[in-house]
């Protein structure tokens, strides 16, 4: 990639570790493209991740970057944002990282409406550890720990975040790269907790075991099952069966946490001053 996007990359660290055809690179590109198009200050942007193939993305991104422990990215990011609300804090996470071990931090950050942009690279599988099922693996799919097919039901991540009180929730896919970029831009512009469920493909572990032989097969699956949020609204439950909506699904602005806290701070200082 040449200018203008290359300046957002740590070129010396490339090529990256991801497998051929892995969707994570597509989503990473969408993020930096969104950052570029919005003209974010690269000095004031921090990218935080957990552990997983997806969570390796920040290592290739030329910002202040933090690769934390599995599942905890949002909690680390909360500390960063609280300590310095001036920073734009982006969290990159995987479906395992965000929704399995990290599920609690996800819902609490949504509840708090703290100003983080969380982008989940959702490939329905644990890629890094070689293909165990995740809370997003569809019932019946195969995984290394679901040799007889997945028996559990998956989350709908957007519904989860919404149920937790999320005020900005969106979804897109690696297939819809331009749409994804736009959705990420909306999320980055949002003042509060913004969550993007970004569907990715893991050809190596999910695809291979589930008869989606090529990366393109997996992307085509996304194309064939995604429905725009506006169409979704008009569909009957039967029509929705097996499909999923993409686009901005929730946008109900509420005051961002560090801003609210700022007011407390002012009040406390006043009181302290008065008492002193």
């Amino acid at each position, binding site marked *: 990639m040449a200018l203008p996007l290359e300046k957002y990359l740590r070129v010396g660290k490339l090529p990256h570790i*991801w497998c051929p055809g892995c969707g994570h690179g597509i989503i990473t590109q969408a993020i930096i493209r969104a950052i570029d198009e919005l003209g974010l200050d690269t000095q004031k942007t921090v990218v935080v991740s957990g552990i997983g193939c997806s969570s390796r993305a920040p290592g290739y991104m030329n910002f202040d970057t933090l690769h934390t422990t599995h599942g905890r990215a949002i909690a680390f990011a909360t500390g960063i944002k609280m300590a310095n609300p001036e920073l734009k804090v982006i969290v990159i996470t995987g479906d395992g990282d965000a929704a399995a071990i990290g599920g609690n931090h996800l819902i609490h950050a949504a509840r708090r409406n703290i100003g983080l942009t969380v982008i989940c690279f959702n490939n329905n599988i644990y890629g890094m550890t070689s293909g165990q099922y995740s809370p997003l693996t569809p019932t019946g799919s195969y995984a290394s720990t679901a040799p007889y097919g997945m028996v559990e039901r998956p989350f709908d991540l957007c519904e989860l975040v919404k149920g937790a009180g999320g005020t900005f929730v969106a979804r897109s896919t690696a297939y819809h790269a331009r749409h994804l970029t736009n959705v990420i831009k909306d999320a980055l512009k949002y003042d509060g907790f913004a969550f993007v469920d970004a569907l990715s493909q893991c050809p190596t572990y999910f695809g291979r075991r589930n008869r989606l032989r090529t990366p393109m097969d997996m992307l085509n699956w996304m194309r064939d099952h995604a429905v725009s949020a506006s169409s979704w609204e008009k569909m009957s439950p039967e029509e929705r069966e097996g499909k999923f909506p993409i686009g901005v699904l929730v946008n109900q602005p509420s005051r961002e946490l560090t801003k609210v806290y700022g007011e407390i701070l002012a009040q406390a200082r006043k009181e302290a001053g008065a008492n002193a």
Partner: protein
Amino acid sequence: MVSDSPYEIAVNRKWCKKCGLCIAFCPKQVLESDDEGGPVVKAPSQCIGCLLCEMHCPDFAIVVKRRAEQ
């Protein structure tokens, strides 16, 4: 490669992992697969600069630029 298209397509072979996505996404069959699945720019003049190849490359390995911009 000389061409009359306003777009120039550059492939970074050091980064390309030959996944074939760029080829599959190109609506104009500008790209063709080499032996190992990587892209060869076959019909540069057909390129409409839609960036579908670039945006879907997981490896940041293909870039489409408007010539005028260079």
